[in-house]
């Protein structure tokens, strides 16, 4: 079984701020992490390898320092890490990104057929949840998003059964391999990296592919290949703080009655 996982390096978004004067992102000194959902995707791929044998290939697109998330994935038990990196890829939106990543996937699959592709449910920097479905669409493979549990995989019948999260519950679906899954965090518990894997990760040389190593149409990558453009970025309008209600500790009943009055007056709850 050959599983391919897409992992993204993301800024620890809690630390990102906007420069109020220039209206640009202040990324300096912001630590980068593996997108949390993608860590679970790697873990799930490693579990598939443990069950069925085979290998796990991890692909990331980003600047050279994104090698870190690939090494991290190797320490979780992945076998091969490929970084897709090129100046020409800069400024790619989700459409261009899924195009470039699907071309990388094709190249990986040429070397060894791929059975299952895993991606995170979404990346925490953009929260778009578009890249996984974009890759599946370009490959012409079925996609199963919001997967909470892989119930069974039958490599001979080329079938997979999974549990997906839905708005009002869940569903159990069967699809044909090769398939692309996007996973929820609850799909598994991350394990600590083993010492041999940590050693391997420290020494691992990530494979790097640029635009010349991938068959990419120059019109479909980077800014030029991206239909969306960012017009303006700005800090969120601050919510105006409100009033402090008198009473508190000394007179909890008074403050409770006052709050109930206020909420009823605003028609937020109904008086009886």
């Amino acid at each position, binding site marked *: 079984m050959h599983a391919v996982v897409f992992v993204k390096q993301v*800024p620890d*978004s*809690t630390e*990102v*701020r906007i420069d109020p004067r220039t209206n640009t*992102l202040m990324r300096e000194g912001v630590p980068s992490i593996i997108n949390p959902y993608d860590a679970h995707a790697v873990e799930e791929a490693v579990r598939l390898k443990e069950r069925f044998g085979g290998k796990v290939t991890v692909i990331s697109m980003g600047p050279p320092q994104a090698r870190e998330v690939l090494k991290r994935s190797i320490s979780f038990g992945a076998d091969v890490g490929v970084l897709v990196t090129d100046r020409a890829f800069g400024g790619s*939106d989700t459409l261009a990104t899924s195009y470039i990543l699907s071309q990388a996937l094709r190249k990986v699959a040429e070397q060894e057929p791929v059975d299952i592709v895993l991606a995170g449910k979404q990346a*925490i*920097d953009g*929260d*778009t949840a*578009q890249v996984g*479905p*974009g890759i599946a*669409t*370009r490959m012409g493979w*079925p*996609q*199963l*998003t*919001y997967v909470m549990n892989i119930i069974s995989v039958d490599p001979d019948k080329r079938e997979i*059964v999974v549990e997906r999260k*839905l*708005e*009002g*519950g*869940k*569903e*159990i*679906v069967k*699809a044909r391999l090769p398939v692309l899954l996007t996973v929820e965090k609850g799909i598994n518990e991350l394990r600590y990296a083993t010492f041999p894997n940590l050693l391997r990760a420290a020494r691992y040389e990530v494979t790097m592919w640029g635009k010349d190593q991938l*068959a990419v*149409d120059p*019109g479909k990558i980077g800014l030029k290949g991206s*239909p*969306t*453009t960012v*017009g*303006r*970025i*700005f*800090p*969120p309008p601050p*919510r105006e*703080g*409100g*009033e402090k*209600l008198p*009473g*508190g500790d000394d007179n*909890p*009943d008074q403050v*409770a009655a006052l*709050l*109930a009055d*206020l909420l*009823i007056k*605003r028609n*937020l709850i109904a*008086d009886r």
Partner: protein
Amino acid sequence: MPEVTKEVLDLSAYKGVWVFLEQVGGEAAPVSWELLGVGRKLAQDLGVELGGALLGYGVEHLAQEAFAHGADIVYLMDDPILKNYRTDPYARGMINLIRKHRPEIVLMGATTLGRDLSGVVATELETGLTADCTMLEIDPEKKLLKQTRPAFGGNIMATILTKDRRPQMATVRPRVMPMPARISGRTGRLVKEELGVQEEDVLTKVLELVKEPGKAVYLDKAEIIVSGGRGLGEKANFALIEELAQALGGTVGASRAAVEAGWISADHQVGQTGTTVRPKIYFAIGISGAIQHLVGMQTSDVIVAINKDPDAAIFKVATYGIVGDLMKIVPALTREFKKRLGTTGA
């Protein structure tokens, strides 16, 4: 795949604002109507019609509802293959409809279904898709759709444009746009279309649909949320939160600290790594107001904060702040609301 660079699109060939009318089992997702509300405004500003794309099996009755909520025209694909949602046939249906009728704007709900579908449709049509918009407006000069969304965990807002591809596609989370008034008797045109997909061609089968009423926590749909944080001190005290929620007919939420302490399960967590909520009333009790918590709840209509620290960050976003010991104040609130609302809290 053919490696041809796209020729420039004739943008003027695309006209009209569309909403994907999401439904499950013949029941419309409320976000469909919310989108018709904002779509109506966009269509007005552009001087075009508002359309609804309705896919499913046995769903024709929803067309009437769409008219009542503002649609001028509904494109219906009613086919047994569309009984349960599956990516492939729904995507093909939408793509065929869009290729044929060429709307300039297509809006979808940022639900699990809408996110699953929109990425496929936009990729196939090679157009832009902006996720989770919180504001949609028409640029008065360029007539482009200005799509504003939060990024980086809510620390910044970005306005995104799709300048030279069509349609301009955007998703919006449920409850972000207000529900439009329902005008009964309002009518429109119904256009029936063939799906044209055979079951053999569909690569996924739905084996079982499991509804989990009562079990799943619908934080994002809740009108009233009562959330507790580390300030509760111990697990037993979390019962105070549950009692107040019950008195108000609300849903229980939590900060990550409360979840990590094991006082309540993770599906109750509000915030960056939990659920984004926008209830009418949000109670933050014993919660300090860390940015990761705030980004998940600060668009609530009214925020009530209870904290013993008068300088807690939560007071900066609170509509009504109560400084004091939650151990005294929460039971008083529960008593008061039970009395005023006639709830038993049993």
